[in-house]
């Protein structure tokens, strides 16, 4: 199962970081944030390489639009696997699974892809809220609830 999901803005500031786990202590939150934050390195590297590839074949502008938003496994540590997803507006979605738990280590790529797509949809719903200011952190109980259930049930 996913232990953490994060929504990161186009300027790389965190918009939402949600995690489930028995432990909600500061240390846990800290390690979770480090994990997501460092995942940005791999994410940015991916984006930079895809962009430069596209730049060489800029004629295929249509292909850029069709670029798969799901970036796949960004990197894995001894304990976690980190997957990435980037929307067309450069909003980054990060999903972290635990590679120590049996449900997390045997996860299939397609499942992660679906989960991140659903997260994208949830995010889109959340920012459609007229009371939400674009670029601000997402503070929404509903979004939080939905994301948590996504983490538990789907992945």
């Amino acid at each position, binding site marked *: 199962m996913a232990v953490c999901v994060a929504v990161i803005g186009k*300027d*790389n*500031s*965190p918009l939402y*970081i949600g995690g489930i786990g028995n432990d909600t202590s500061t240390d846990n*939150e*800290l390690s979770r*944030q*480090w994990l997501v*934050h*460092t995942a*940005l*390195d*791999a994410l*940015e*590297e991916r984006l930079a390489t895809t962009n430069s590839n596209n730049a060489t074949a800029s004629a295929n502008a249509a292909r850029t639009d069709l670029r798969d938003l799901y970036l796949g496994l960004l*990197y894995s540590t001894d304990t976690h696997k980190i997957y990435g997803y980037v929307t067309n507006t450069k909003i980054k979605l990060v999903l972290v699974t635990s590679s120590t738990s049996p449900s997390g280590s045997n996860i299939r790529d397609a499942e992660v892809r679906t989960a991140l797509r659903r997260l994208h949809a949830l995010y889109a719903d959340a920012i459609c809220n*007229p*009371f939400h*200011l*674009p670029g601000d952190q997402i503070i929404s109980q509903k979004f939080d609830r939905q994301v948590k259930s996504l983490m538990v049930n789907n992945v």
Partner: protein
Amino acid sequence: MATQPSDNTEFPPDIILKPLALIGLSGLDTVNNAIHKTIWDAFSNNRRPDRASVRFKLLNNTFEFPVVKPKRNSYEWYIPKGILKKNWIQKRVSLIPALVVIFYDMEWNDPQWNEKIIECASRVQSIRAAVEGHATRVAVVVVQSGLSPPPSEYMLGAERAQALCSACEIQSKSLFVLPHSDHLMGYIIRLENAFYDIAQNYYHHETKNIKQHRDHLNKTTHHYLFVRHQFKLGFLNELKQDLSTAHKHYMHAYNNLLETRQVDTNIHEIRTVAGYINYKLCKLLFALNLARDAIAQLKSHIERYKNRIGPTELLFEHYAWIARQYSAFGELFDEAIRVGLPGIQSQHPGFYYQHAAQFTVKRRQAMRSVCCEAQQYPPPPDPMEGIVEFYGQRPWRPGRLSADPHDPQKEQAAILALQYNERVFNHSAVIISFLGSAISQFKTFHSPRMRKQLVVEMANEYYYCADYGKALTLLSHMLWDYRKEKWWFLASHVLNRALQCAYLSAKIHDYIQLSIEALSKNIQVPNNDKDRIFRNIISVLNLNVPAPEHDLPASSQGKALELWGMAIDKEPHIVTIDMVNIASFLEIKTKFKQQKYRMDELIEIEIFARLTYNTILEIKTAILTISSNTETIEIPITDNDNSIIKLEGCSVKKFLCKFKTNSHDNGSELSIKNVSFILDSDKKRKIIMNFKIEDNKSLPIIHPELLHFILSPKNDYEFDCIVPLTTTFITSRECRLSIGIDNAVPALQGEWFPTTFTVTNNEDSLVYDMTIVLSLLSSPDNANPETVTELSFKQGEPQSPPLKLLIGNVNKASTYSNKFYLKTNRTATATVQIKVSYNIDLNETPKLECVKDFTTKISVIKPFEVSTNFVTMNFKPVSKCFVDDPFIVMPQIKILSPWDLLILDTELETVDCFKYADDKKPPSCISNLQVAEKNIASDAICIQAKYKPKDLPTRVGLYNIRWRRKTNTDGSIVMSSTALSGITIDDCPISIEVNYPEVVDLQTSVPLKCTLIGNTNTTIRLNLSVEGTDAYMFSGYKKFSVTVPPKDKVELCYNIHPLVAGNTVPPRIKATVLGENSRQEVIKEMFEKIFPQNIFVMPKYNK
């Protein structure tokens, strides 16, 4: 860290160094013999990677080879005491050469040949005796001057070489000749390769020896030997540079080791050896360019040994060992990258250094849990003393294999000793060095954030080892990045640690800055204890020691208090904080009320301050800094004239600053540079909070329309909606002068057109230093007006633009008037700009400069149009003239001007090929003629062609008309010139003059003389015939031929007698040229033209 006891986990150099085939060189006297020195240097210096993998060792006479152990015939009763002997590698790489080379100086034709050969043979013998028992090869190099030819071409040489071989009992391929004269390096490299071949041969032979042992071994007691032999095979193959075979044997050794029974007493030995073999395996895999396999090998290695913890009292040793595996692998990986292996972001040495650091942290944790009791080193005898023969064995029980400790007391003391050593070990230093290596790798492989995390970890280590200054430096740099990316949770973590460091090192500036930032709403502090932090700021301001931070190490607290006691009333007294770069509890927005100000207006700036932390902040002084092009001014900010400003928490306060512009600022930009709020407690210390106002670009864009929906306090909403305006433009004061223009447009092309302008002072006071500048403005239909238009204040005297007029004072409500003239040669609208500038004294600002631009447009038209007609002397239109044949030019002047004009005079300036038909210039027909619009004035000038030019003249000449406006009696006269169109000129070989009268009386004879003049240098013969008519009688030749001599004339005389009255056709002469036909047409035309078509005959008046 100098006192740091050595970490036992480090790999011995024997394992780390790359094995090179050892070759001993004997018989070289490098101290006394220059040639020998050169040879030795050539072998040993500048060993580039492309040279053979050998190591040369200079053997002197006293060198002793290791004693050969007696060869074992049976292993049946042999029980090995350990896995790998510590001295075996050492022996192989530096003591037992694969080959000993004996150098001997000898020429083939040496006179003492016999003595020499005996001496050489004895040297070889002595070396043979020294290496007795080893299979070391022997070779002889004969050092020669290189003057004698090689033995193959030299019978004596070949013979003696043969003799030498047999004397020394060596094969002929072990004998080498080294000429030392030229190309020494080339010879040396060839020798080196030959030696290398022999060495490889030797090592191959050695491996065979070891393989033979295997048959004697059994798995029950000789498990260690399986490992040892395979390791030796691997190492020998490495010496032989056969890397893949070496890898195969090491792999066998590794697998054999895995099968070895493991107990608490041998766990240290097993994992030590496993670590060495694994290191060798990874190193070879990298060398074989199999980086993936190397990584996989390390992973499986760690996986296998991860759970082989060993005795729990020595748990830290296990983690130390894992950390070393990782760091050693990191070094191997790093080295491989340096020689060309590409690293990627997800796989590079940094990760292994990071793991090494992590396991060192675990090691420290293990130390903390198991070493609490190890307060002091055990009393002597020191259990750590003792020589260990095998890698990884314990000095207090060397060579013992049994699983149970034979001396529990000694064992206990040894564990205590190890634990004590671990307690005093500086883990932080090791962690920091691992992290340092990892950080540089992560930086190289594009992982800035990973690097940041490691830097924070490094700072934590510095914190743990009480190096607060270094920790603070690292943390403040990292804080910047987290703040910039708005990872506030991480920023809070970093900031809190940094604040602790700042407190512990009593760095006032950092302490204040971090405290201020800690009060920001974005930062979370432990226990949400922001009040304490705020009180601390105020304490420092009042020169009091602040209260300590949370969770400080108890050992450092006393020291910190001491430091604060010393620092609190010392420098820095003025603490300047750059508030824009930090998240803080005070936010400032500034705004010019208008985007533009006029010079006479008061500039107003609104400053909004929001205090997000719930307190009351008393600001002693607040200063606004404004800069213009020329200067920077500081304006105090006051709160309704109260210089002390009180800011209340969670509210927005607005201040208004007003000031006057400086006279230099006209036309320039003013910008807000800085707002400073100064906290001051009337003690020595001040805290200056500087808000540098940057360009709008860097600020986040504010969308007030989006903020409407946000649920926030009204104050916040208003503050958030304020769009800062940090620059304003200063324009000049509005001018209250008016201008009147008086002129008679349209102007006529070419005339000096007068315009009167009148400036009226509508200001409330006198204006002075008034200047008027006239200039021409370009317009779309008149792009370069200066080229065709002239301006002047005096009629007829052009002045170069712009025209300046210094006027001086103009009193209130009075006027100034002047007139300028404009002359243009183009019929387009001319735009004249009249720029009036002056100074005025107003109440607030003396000598205020005002400027106003007026423009006036003057349209220009042509006064008239000239067209031309050409007629003959009898006013018949012609399209062609003949040389010397006069005709009349009739210019027609069509008046276009709406104003009446007076044409004073006209004249025609003919071009070269024309001249006046009269001797002198005739007076104009239309001089002093007054004309009005749409009139047409016709002139007539009689001219004739002088010769026929090569090209047709485009014009007859310039027609000059001198004219002026009728009303403008005193004005200057304008001369307009028009080119009159050209006419075809032809020449005729003869010219004819006939005195035909226009009118004759009936019945009256008229003599008619016709003169033919030859114009050419040849005679012209003409056939003439008179064409008679019924209306006339005539006398004279009717048909005859005549010869016109060149440049002479022939006269023909006739009488004609008209018979009828009225318009009659007179008799006419027609001519044809005899002979030459080309002139026929011209002459015919000439005659046709010259003789009239009709003559009016007057009837006779009968009385």
